[in-house]
């Protein structure tokens, strides 16, 4: 019998560095794809309800979250993961519910106080993530003050940069109900910051990110559907609005798909560098969102010099903050504290210690089925057919786009996807 609380063998320094590199690269790639997820939704110029837009994106997310894991690892491997730690399904569904409520709150926050105030408020989720990481999962424990300062200072710099960027990108911010808007933005930040507790718990215990997101999305879609039904006043009204918007649903589904790719990398960042570093790095999505808005959709064209100064200053601050966090990677001493937190979790829930240790080291303790089953191909085929179907009836709106920049940004995103995907595969085999 293996003692679950026995001191785990230390990872060698080279392996730890490679895992940290894969995690940091995942955080930056997550930022690029999460930021680009907004772009397809800008093609929707129809006056749809914000909650219906959010629901349609979540439906795209649902399709992608069931098909991508089936393609990358197969449902058999996901089932094997879940059998090791079935209690984590509760946390995955809970995290999905947190995401859906937070996303809906942001829509109301933008309506009431405008993006310039709302965005920095909910971006404070990274500060909450640092707190939860330290309190529950031993993050930033056993590390020197220089690295702690790197993470905290980096998050503070990114917060300042986010504020400047949000001020610059808010043109004609609505004047509304300030107290309600501030409450909505702060609540969204609290929900998104807390959502990382389930993420980190699952990955410390050994669950594969691809298995976690499969159940996360169930909570996400059920909660979003409930919110949309309440908002629209029943099934008939919601169905009528969705049917009326069928020629633009493709863009929303596509936005959801792009978001899933970003979120998948965010999950690997949370797993390998922890939430205190992973959340701020994926918050660089604001930079990418701004790049799409400025370069492709021509936002802020003809703006004042002050606005451009804010954009440049905010971008530099965010980049500096992200760099400070990237340079403050976990040391061997801190990683040992992570292993202690993982052993505590394993003992509490009776999980095989070998499984927990292997997963934290980015390895697989069991047999990973490499062949895909008929179920996997059905899921992939069904999702592809749905996208193609909506794509065929999609209407392309009359918008002036910077096509050169579309190509440039897409190439950059694909390069990050391939580079980080290859690094993750080589280092962890997507474990």
């Amino acid at each position, binding site marked *: 019998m293996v003692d679950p609380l026995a001191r785990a063998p230390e990872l060698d320094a080279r392996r730890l560095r490679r895992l940290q590199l894969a995690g940091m690269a995942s955080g930056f790639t997550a930022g690029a794809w999460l930021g680009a997820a907004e772009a397809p939704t800008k093609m929707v110029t129809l006056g749809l309800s914000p909650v219906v837009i959010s629901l349609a994106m979540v439906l795209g997310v649902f399709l992608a979250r069931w098909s991508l894991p089936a393609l990358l690892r197969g449902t058999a491997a996901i089932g094997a993961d879940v059998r090791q730690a079935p209690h984590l399904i509760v946390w995955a569904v*809970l995290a999905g519910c947190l995401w859906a409520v937070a996303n809906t709150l942001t829509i109301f926050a933008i309506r009431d106080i405008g993006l310039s105030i709302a965005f920095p408020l909910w971006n404070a989720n990274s500060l909450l993530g640092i707190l939860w990481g330290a309190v529950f999962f031993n993050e930033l424990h056993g590390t020197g003050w220089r690295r702690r300062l790197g993470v905290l200072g980096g998050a503070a710099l990114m917060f300042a940069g986010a504020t400047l960027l949000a001020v610059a990108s808010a043109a004609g911010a609505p004047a509304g109900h300030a107290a309600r808007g501030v*409450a*909505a933005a702060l609540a969204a930040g609290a929900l998104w910051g807390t959502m990382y507790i389930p993420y980190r718990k699952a990955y410390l215990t050994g669950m594969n990110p691809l298995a976690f997101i499969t159940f996360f999305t169930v909570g996400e879609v059920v909660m979003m559907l409930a919110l949309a039904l309440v908002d629209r006043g029943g099934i008939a009204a919601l169905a009528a609005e969705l049917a009326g918007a069928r020629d633009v649903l493709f863009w929303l589904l596509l936005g959801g798909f792009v978001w899933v790719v970003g979120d998948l990398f965010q999950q690997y960042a949370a797993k390998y560098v922890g939430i205190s570093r992973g959340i701020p790095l994926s918050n660089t999505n604001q930079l990418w969102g701004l790049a799409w808005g400025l370069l492709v959709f021509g936002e802020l064209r003809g703006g004042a010099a002050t606005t451009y100064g804010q954009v440049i200053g905010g971008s530099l601050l965010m980049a500096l903050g992200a760099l400070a966090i990237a340079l403050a990677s976990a040391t061997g001493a801190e990683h040992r504290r992570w292993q202690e937190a993982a052993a505590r979790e394993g003992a509490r829930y009776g999980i095989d210690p070998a499984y927990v240790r292997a997963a934290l080291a980015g390895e697989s303790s069991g047999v990973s089925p490499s062949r895909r089953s008929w179920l996997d191909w059905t899921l992939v085929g069904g999702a592809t057919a749905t996208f193609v179907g909506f794509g065929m009836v999609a209407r392309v709106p009359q918008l002036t786009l910077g096509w050169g920049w579309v190509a440039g940004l897409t190439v950059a995103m694909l390069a990050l996807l391939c580079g980080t995907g290859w690094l993750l595969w080589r280092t962890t085999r997507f474990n």
Partner: protein
Amino acid sequence: MSARLAAMLHDAQLWVPVAVLIAGLLVLWWIR
């Protein structure tokens, strides 16, 4: 009650997200 369920019910990592979710739903209900 199984040991796993008992462990879940005594786990602060379950109740903190549940409390935050309920608070978020209350804020949403208030601002609508």
